[in-house]
């Protein structure tokens, strides 16, 4: 069975789904991604679904589960690239994609992750500036 590749770019894992997934492939991705989050310590996951021409309840549920697993493993998941026809269909189907954050494209997704990243090093604190010295 084919597997969905998971790429590490900086501190983010990027998953780009390019094929019409069988159910088993979606479940495999769920497992693989959990393992990669632990192995890499990445704090952000971007799932690009530009290549998916439908999202049915099974894939929708898998995306929600992946987001929950990632959260438990201290990583945030953002689903990007949903086609408008897919969004319309999802809403009509009644799928709410609970717990999933979305962004329009990979670039916006990366921005969102960067904005939400907590400053956990002194370098990051320097970049943000000291509130006491920057406020008037």
């Amino acid at each position, binding site marked *: 069975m084919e597997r969905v590749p998971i790429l590490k770019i900086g501190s983010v894992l990027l998953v780009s789904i390019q094929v*019409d997934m*069988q*159910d088993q492939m979606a479940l495999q991705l769920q497992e693989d991604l959990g393992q990669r989050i632990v192995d890499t310590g990445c704090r952000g996951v971007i799932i690009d679904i530009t290549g998916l021409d*439908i999202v049915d309840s099974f894939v929708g549920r898998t995306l929600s589960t992946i987001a929950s697993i990632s959260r438990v493993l201290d990583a945030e998941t953002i689903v990007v690239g949903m086609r*408008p026809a897919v969004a319309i*269909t999802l809403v*009509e189907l009644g799928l709410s994609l609970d717990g999933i954050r979305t962004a329009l494209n990979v670039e916006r997704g990366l921005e969102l992750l960067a904005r939400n990243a907590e400053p956990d090093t002194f370098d990051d604190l320097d970049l943000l500036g000291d509130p006491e010295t920057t406020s008037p």
Partner: protein
Amino acid sequence: MTGSEGPGHQVQAIGNDEDVVRVRQLVRTAAVAAKLSLVDQTKVVTAASELARNTLVYGGGGEAAVSTVDNGVRRGVRVVFSDSGPGIADIDLALTDGYTSGGGLGLGLSGARRLVDEFELDTVVGAGTTVAVVKWAR
């Protein structure tokens, strides 16, 4: 196992995950041939995916017959799913959003019904279930 019963009519056996993908592809091709809009193609393919999975998971496998239809005014896609599984004891309950007898979200039947224009469910407990759906081009 794709058989042809005349022009525009194809039968796909549903026995595993891969067959569900094949059903989606057949329905997509028929929807394009019937000149459905992109949104309507997406809706009918999504509905077909839900129903094909139901046939597999709850019906224990079966088949999907995909054809293009024409009512003189509009063209459309018709898909008939049939299985010889246990049947559905309480149809109203099965069509309720959120109800599931398996591990799913309970959106398969009810969601699929919302995505198509015509939806017909015939079921006999102990003998099987047939679901016929039609999506018309606007």
